[in-house]
């Protein structure tokens, strides 16, 4: 037989070439070629061996793998001259073979995958053998048996591969034919049964084969298998050496099959893994689908849970058409049942090919810094059935760095339907930046799985394996922190101190909802909220105008906002009374998007009495004194996570600032006291009454109560204007002891009324319900201010008078005599001027840039102690610059300044002309 010859020849050739081959000094090309040839020889040899094995009935032992099927079924049957017939004494062997055939049970594949086994024969052996025999011996006897079904069998036999339909029909026929006992006694005419064919072939081979090795190989199944392994390994190794990895790997698969059959699962799994890796890597799914179940079975037998699960997942992620849905469900149930059992190792299972996810189409979700949210993710499930995930975690990857962003956890059990699912994740606050989806991890029972693939949109796409990364789209944008709301005081001008005043706080959302916001109010020292009064809140009508004023970004927005303001009906304006609960106010819903004003009744307490100033110009009062602060904390945002803290300064003030001046002092110790009232607030004040409470030392002159004539009242004082009152006082005789006492203050009382708007500034105080009846003159407020009146008011003992200059105008460079007259107004008492009294120290002070002083600047003059004595001090000086300049000043260092009355009282100026043009230059020679 040709097969035998080929096997022997191949083996011989392999041996011969191996001996000849020296792998040291050959080109790589040659080396490859050598290995390839050897691989070819081995594989040819292997195929022939398989064919022989099949002929003698070892077909059940041959793995029906694609490679075997392809090589055997496409190869025609050997065409011996005479098909062997069964020897006479072989009945027992026939029985054995028949038993073997009957015992043959098709191996049930794992997961209940049922496939039609791949054919190993080009045509059915029984028919082929019988037909050959009959055509040789009885002519066309085949037609006797098959004629009615197919009359063209003769043709079919010659071109078997082309007639697959015929094969099928025959197979059907055969199953009955060969098992039914033949009716013919004649061994030649009777069609042979399969077992008989096997036996006949075996006998014929035994006769043919001269090689004892080969005989031994074919004598038993075990020996055959051993040789088969040897040949397969040889072929695989050689192909690997020749870089024909696909050939080699396929043969590895064959080795694996044998190992598997023998129970050597470890080796089998390794080889299968190689095969799967090749097919999976190159994406040949049809082929992968064939091998993968076997690998899974090996792994299951090996208790390789991770590998087994991975294989299951890979099976599931193969194209849906490759497996029946029932099979796919079996894969899934396998995964689930394993997942719910005790898992020994917790390696995350990669299900990227099975569970894919993507963000929702459309622009990425935008969040402000610190906000929480809900992220909705589309998850595609490749499982054939619903699958329950015990938890799901999604990581976000920041695009700006490699750090993992936050983890989103959805700990609820989620049921994934096959296909598209939408899952929402609660989103904790994230750092600013933009994020893409990272990895999806989750649990099925004890099993951790992770998926890091993205699908763009459809399930069709998710099936497709891409070798390169898809561009990822940001799914979440978290903005940098920016002001989201603003709190400011609505009024900047002063409010009345010690009275309950409304303070307005403007709460302005900046493109952010203040829904459910809570404002904490914490007043600073010296400030208290009238809690008995409710807090008013209204929409801020100024906000619209304000935004118009500030919005200079574009006319369009300006116009639209104006238009919106104009057409907004009155109903749009909200007003609500709120209650302060433990320092907190909750915002109503309408205030969530519009700017609103919160009016809080508040009272600033200052127990210091207002103090009038006595000089001509009102001295600036320290603003800080009357400044009060109020700390505000606004909590808003979806989960009150946004906090805006601010401190607002409020300026409080008395209604008036009082300054006094003694307008005139008469000889009879009557004083005319001018009281100037400066309005300090931005409101109209009406003075209804004013009176002075004088302390000892002063009494009211005239009628007695010292009130200005009431016909002048009410005296209306406009904002920031001033008014004067004149009081007539006279001095009382005092004893010396009184002077040492600190003089008690004189109090100026002013009863007034205020008319103002709370949106502008000071306004009438909030009427308190509780103490409404306490004051009948409820509307009139009383302002008390202390005035300093000291007893020796303006009683100097010396008068210094600057005498007029001799000529109207003095010129630069011209000598002038400055004269002062010093006069003693009254007797100096002993204790005030203790030293020798008739000597008086004087000193001339002048700016040396402007004046040149000739003579003594400092000296003593004698002045008589008597009242009325006078002396003139003169000094020669020369102005240096032109203009209005201060003249030199005469000071008396030895005498207290308060006892000197100057005339003119304050600083004064003298006019100095430029130097006269020198005429000497103009005199003609």
């Amino acid at each position, binding site marked *: 037989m040709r097969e035998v010859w080929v096997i022997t020849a191949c083996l011989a050739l392999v041996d011969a070439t191996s001996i000849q081959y020296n792998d040291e000094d050959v080109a790589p090309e040659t080396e*490859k070629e050598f290995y390839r040839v050897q691989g070819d020889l081995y594989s040819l040899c292997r195929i022939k061996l398989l064919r022989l094995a099949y002929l003698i009935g070892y077909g059940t032992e041959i793995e029906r793998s*694609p*490679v075997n*099927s*392809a090589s055997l*079924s*496409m*190869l025609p049957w050997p065409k011996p001259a005479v098909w062997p017939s069964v020897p006479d004494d072989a009945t027992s062997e026939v029985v054995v073979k028949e038993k073997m055939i009957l015992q043959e049970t098709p191996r049930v594949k794992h997961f209940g995958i049922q496939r*039609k086994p*791949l*054919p190993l024969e080009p045509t059915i052996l029984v028919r082929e053998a019988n037909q050959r025999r009959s055509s040789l011996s009885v002519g066309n006897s085949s037609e006797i048996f098959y004629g009615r079904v197919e009359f063209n069998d003769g043709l079919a036999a010659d071109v078997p*591969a*082309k007639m*697959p*339909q015929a094969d099928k029909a025959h197979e059907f026929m055969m199953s009955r034919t060969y098992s039914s006992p033949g009716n013919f006694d004649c061994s030649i005419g009777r069609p042979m049964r399969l077992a008989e064919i096997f036996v006949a072939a075996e006998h014929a081979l035994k006769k043919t084969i001269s090689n004892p090795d080969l005989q031994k190989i074919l004598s038993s199944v075990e020996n055959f298998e051993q040789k088969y392994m040897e040949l397969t390994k040889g072929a695989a190794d050689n*192909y690997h050496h020749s*870089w*024909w*990895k*696909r*050939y080699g790997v*396929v043969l590895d698969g064959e080795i694996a099959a044998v190992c598997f059959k023998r129970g050597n699962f470890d080796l089998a799994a390794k080889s299968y893994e190689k095969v799967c890796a090749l*097919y999976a*890597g*190159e*994406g*040949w799914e*049809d*082929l992968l689908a*064939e091998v993968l179940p076997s690998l899974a079975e090996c792994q299951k037998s090996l208790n390789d849970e991770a590998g087994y699960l991975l294989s299951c997942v890979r099976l599931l992620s193969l194209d849906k058409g490759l497996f029946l849905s029932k099979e796919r469900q079996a894969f899934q149930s396998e995964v689930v049942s394993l997942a719910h059992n005790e898992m020994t190792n917790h390696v995350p299972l990669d299900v990227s090919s099975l569970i894919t996810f993507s963000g929702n189409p459309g622009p990425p979700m935008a969040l402000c810094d610190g906000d929480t949210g809900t992220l909705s993710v589309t998850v595609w499930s490749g499982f054939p059935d619903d699958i329950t995930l015990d938890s799901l975690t999604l990581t976000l990857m920041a695009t700006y760095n490699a750090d993992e962003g936050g983890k989103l956890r959805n700990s609820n059990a989620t049921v994934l339907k096959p296909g598209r699912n939408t899952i929402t994740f609660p989103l904790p606050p994230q750092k600013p930046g933009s994020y893409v989806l990272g990895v999806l991890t989750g649990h099925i029972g004890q099993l951790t799985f992770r998926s890091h693939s993205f699908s763009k949109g459809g399930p*069709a796409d998710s099936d*497709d*394996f*891409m*070798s*390169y990364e898809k561009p990822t789209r940001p799914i979440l944008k978290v903005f940098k922190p920016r002001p989201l709301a603003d709190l400011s005081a609505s009024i900047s001008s002063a409010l009345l101190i010690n009275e309950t005043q409304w303070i307005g706080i403007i709460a302005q959302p900046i493109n952010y909802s203040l829904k459910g916001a809570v404002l904490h109010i914490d007043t600073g020292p010296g400030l208290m909220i009238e809690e008995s009064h409710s807090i008013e809140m209204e929409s801020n009508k100024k906000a619209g105008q304000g935004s118009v004023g500030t919005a200079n970004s574009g006319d369009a927005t300006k116009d639209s906002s104006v238009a919106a303001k104009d057409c907004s009906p009155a109903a749009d304006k909200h007003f609500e009374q709120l209650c302060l609960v433990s320092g907190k106010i909750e915002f109503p819903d309408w205030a969530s998007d519009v700017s609103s004003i919160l009016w809080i009744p508040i009272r600033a307490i200052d127990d210091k009495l207002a103090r009038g100033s006595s000089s001509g110009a009102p001295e600036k009062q320290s603003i800080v004194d009357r400044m009060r602060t109020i700390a505000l904390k606004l909590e808003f945002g979806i989960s009150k996570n946004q906090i805006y803290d601010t401190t607002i300064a409020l300026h409080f003030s008395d209604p008036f600032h009082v300054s006094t001046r003694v307008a005139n002092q008469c000889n009879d110790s009557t004083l005319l006291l001018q009281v100037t009232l400066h309005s300090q607030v931005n409101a109209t004040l009406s003075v209804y009454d004013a009176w002075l409470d004088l302390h000892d030392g002063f009494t009211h002159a005239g009628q007695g109560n010292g009130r200005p004539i009431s016909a002048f009242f009410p005296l209306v004082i406009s904002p920031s204007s001033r008014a004067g009152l004149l009081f007539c006082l006279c001095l009382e005789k005092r004893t010396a002891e009184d002077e040492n006492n600190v003089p008690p203050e004189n109090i100026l009382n002013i009863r007034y009324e205020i008319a103002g708007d709370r949106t502008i500034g000071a306004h009438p105080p909030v009427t308190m319900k509780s103490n409404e009846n306490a004051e009948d003159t409820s509307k009139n407020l009383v302002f008390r201010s202390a005035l300093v009146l000291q007893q020796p008011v303006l009683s100097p003992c010396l008068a210094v008078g600057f005498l007029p200059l001799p000529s109207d105008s003095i010129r630069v460079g011209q000598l002038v005599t400055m004269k002062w007259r010093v006069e003693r107004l009254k007797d100096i008492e002993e204790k005030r001027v203790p030293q020798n009294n008739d000597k008086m120290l004087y000193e001339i002070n002048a700016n040396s840039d402007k004046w040149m002083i000739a003579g003594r600047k400092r000296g003593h003059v004698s002045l008589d102690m008597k009242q009325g004595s006078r002396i003139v001090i003169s000094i020669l000086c020369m102005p240096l610059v032109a203009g209005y300049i201060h003249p030199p000043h005469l000071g008396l260092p030895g005498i207290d300044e308060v006892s000197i009355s100057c005339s003119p009282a304050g600083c004064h100026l003298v006019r100095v002309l430029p130097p006269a043009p020198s005429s000497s230059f103009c005199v003609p020679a």
Partner: protein
Amino acid sequence: MTSTACFIIVSRNDIPIYEAEVGSAAKREDAAQLHQFVLHAALDIVQDLAWTTSAMFLKAIDRFNDLVVSVYVTAGHTRFMLLHDSRNEDGIKSFFQEVHELYIKILLNPLYLPGSRITSSHFDTKVRALARKYL
């Protein structure tokens, strides 16, 4: 027209991106797998042969009993592999050339990612028509 023919386009990454059974014979249940198997194995030979010639059409590179594998390699190393049992080499060459044109049109589609599966039904119809015409 051949009775058995299987046409596969294999991307440069060895991934089959298009498969078609273009034979006139009725499809056997196991045939697809066998054909895939044969063609897959032939990739080994293509990888050797492709660099030995500048021609795109590599002619019949592998024989599997009575089935022949013809291969056409494009400039981008995409391989058109045809498993057939006819001897009409000219027809096969024309078939490959026309399919190459179609393939280029597919590549020019901006929505097609090179290396991904060709799902265009138009392409499929055209390829089958070409197979009827030339094979």
